């Protein structure tokens, strides 16, 4: 069910890189019934042991406000930044896409990959693995085009995002 005033928000969360921290964040979303469209996590500062979680979620303004307040309440959370409201930001996702085909379809997949600036990172006589980065929409479009050409496997990272300009989170 989508409510009329629901919006998509990309939220960056800086957390202590300690066991269980991801479970706390995911448990918060599932326990309170919030949506997760995409979630990524990786250590970003080894010295200070900080990880960055990027979560894409949907909700009414009141729910989004709740999500942010609930995230800030978690003890190992340092910063919560709603990139969607805090100004312009860049969002990227990476996908590895395997296409198994021969003949014209194989050629056509290479041609489209070129248009999308996808790179071939593995090739056999009967398959390619493409690496493509961009917005989630771009990745979606690429995958859709590959479908009739022999798409067999997809692996996506989920969205990572960062604000534009000089300021840090």
């Amino acid at each position: 069910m989508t409510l009329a005033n629901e919006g998509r928000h990309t939220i960056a969360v800086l957390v202590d890189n300690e066991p269980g921290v991801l479970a706390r964040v995911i448990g918060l979303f599932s326990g309170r019934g919030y949506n997760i469209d995409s979630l990524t996590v990786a250590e970003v500062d080894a010295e200070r042991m900080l990880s960055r979680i990027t979560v894409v979620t949907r909700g009414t303004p009141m729910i989004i406000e709740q999500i942010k307040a609930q995230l800030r309440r978690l003890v190992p959370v340092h910063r919560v930044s709603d990139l969607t409201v805090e100004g312009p930001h860049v969002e990227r996702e990476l996908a590895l896409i395997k296409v198994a085909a021969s003949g014209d379809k194989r050629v056509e997949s290479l041609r489209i990959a070129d248009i999308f600036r996808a790179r071939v990172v593995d090739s056999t006589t009967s398959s390619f693995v493409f690496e493509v980065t961009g917005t989630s929409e771009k990745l979606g479009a690429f995958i859709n085009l590959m479908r009739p050409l022999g798409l067999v496997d997809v692996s996506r990272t989920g969205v990572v995002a960062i604000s534009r300009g000089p300021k840090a989170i």
Partner: protein
Amino acid sequence: MTAQRLTGAEMVIKALVDQGVDVVFGYPGGAVLPIYDALFQQKELRHILVRHEQGAIHAAEGYARSTGKVGVVLVTSGPGATNCVTGLVDALMDSTPIVCLTGQVPTHLIGNDAFQEADTVGITRPCTKHNYLVKTTDDVARTIHEAFHVARSGRPGPVVVDLPKNVVVAEGTYQAPVAVRHKSYHPQVKGETSRIEQAVDLMAAAKRPLFYVGGGVVNSGPAASQLLTSFARLTGFPVTLTLMGLGAYPASDKQFLGMLGMHGTFEANMAMHGCDVMVCVGARFDDRVTGRLDAFSPGSKKIHIDIDPSSINKNVHVDIPIIGDAAYVIEDMIKIWKARQHRADPAALASWWSTIDGWRKRECLSYVPSRELIKPQFALQRLFERLKGRDDVFVSTEVGQHQMWAAQFLRFDKPNRWLTSGGLGTMGYGLPAAMGAQVAHPKALCIDVAGEASILMNIQEMSTLAQYRLPVKVFILNNRYMGMVRQWQEFFFGGRYSESYMDSLPDFVKLADAFGAVGLRASKPDEVDGLIDEMLRVDRAVIADVMVDPAENCYPMIPAGAAHNEIKLGPDGDGNASPPSDEGMILV
């Protein structure tokens, strides 16, 4: 000075002592035997051996609520930890500071389905404010200190520290508590000045103002209650309290309208419905308070003071949110109110008070007295008569009708005297909670107002009362029914009393005797005073079995999902609500 080498178990004891702990509620088992051994060899900590780990947590809650200090629990791994889950959630919902130390299997066995292993941090993650698994002995003391800081600061709550057996057996370096700034956790206590000014100006312009005050003021400490009381007197505004806030404002004061919400007074709910400026302090717009959200206080501008940003705009949109500790914020409000020489509009306020007095005349708590049957309200009124004027009375409750009647008829002038399970509504809370309060206040009068169904949920704690000679009084309003369930079945399920009759009840007088306590019974209204006198006279634990009218219902009642002005005042058609909406039927 060389750093102190201690075993993990010794560190646990030392860390607790350094945190100012004087008593621990607990129950031993394999994984915590080293800690119990360290406990045996020291004199600074008192241990109260409960009879079930759930009792330990509720006792610690009663201790914490009645003192404002952190309650401490020590239990073993596996079943010891899982038995604590209900109590942890209870403390989480009611913002009660608890540190619960759980034993765990040795680190190399974690994940192996070892004997009495449970994933305690996994199970308790959503049941606590925060939890820790301590993996090395050097971290034991620091983690416990941090656990106390997290439990007591900001919005208080329960914290679990899971201690594997090898970690408490090994030696390490003890770290004394130091006031370090936590790297990520910093609750905000000071409110934003511009918001506070805005709020005070809005209040000064109000025509029909109301203070809506909750448990946050109790959490903040007695100073917050005093400041709130001064501010209310300064402004002349009426005050209503939530179930968790009772005592935060003196109930004997003429500006007090009583509790609001589902079983709140007519005047409090009507004032909530009709006010034009609402000043919410440390309350969280619970659904038992708001009723139907789209009809909740429709014409008011709302100010909300709360230490937890997640309480703001959660259920109800507010106009002026102020994040901060209640005491700090009210203190600032008083200063600004005085500095700006504000005065409430006298004509408007007088007219508001006369409207309120009209509502008060309905005497919504009145009931039809009886010569044959003890009305539960009558029993509580008689009890209250004997408690009036005493400053050393702590009352806990179980959950049900008796809890609501106790909230209505026992009136508190000070905070920390009223111990009840509001958010989770845990039957079985009252006896251990009263026990915890009695441990903290050995000379005080600690009463558990109980239902005959609820009391059976933690009745084993009578044995703890006996061991430590804790003279807790259990005052059972025995209606032979899960009365609150029966009431809903009568109103909303066509009088089909499915499984709510309490068959085969024990003889509570004999049961008291078996536990080494005094058993008393009253079956007629004229026996009630004598029973109360005797209960207060004996210097031992008492079970007073008061046989009350089984058919009595608790009024006023706003059916779940109804609006405040749809309040049901009694059985005689007076203000009778229509059957609840479909939406209401699915609410609890």
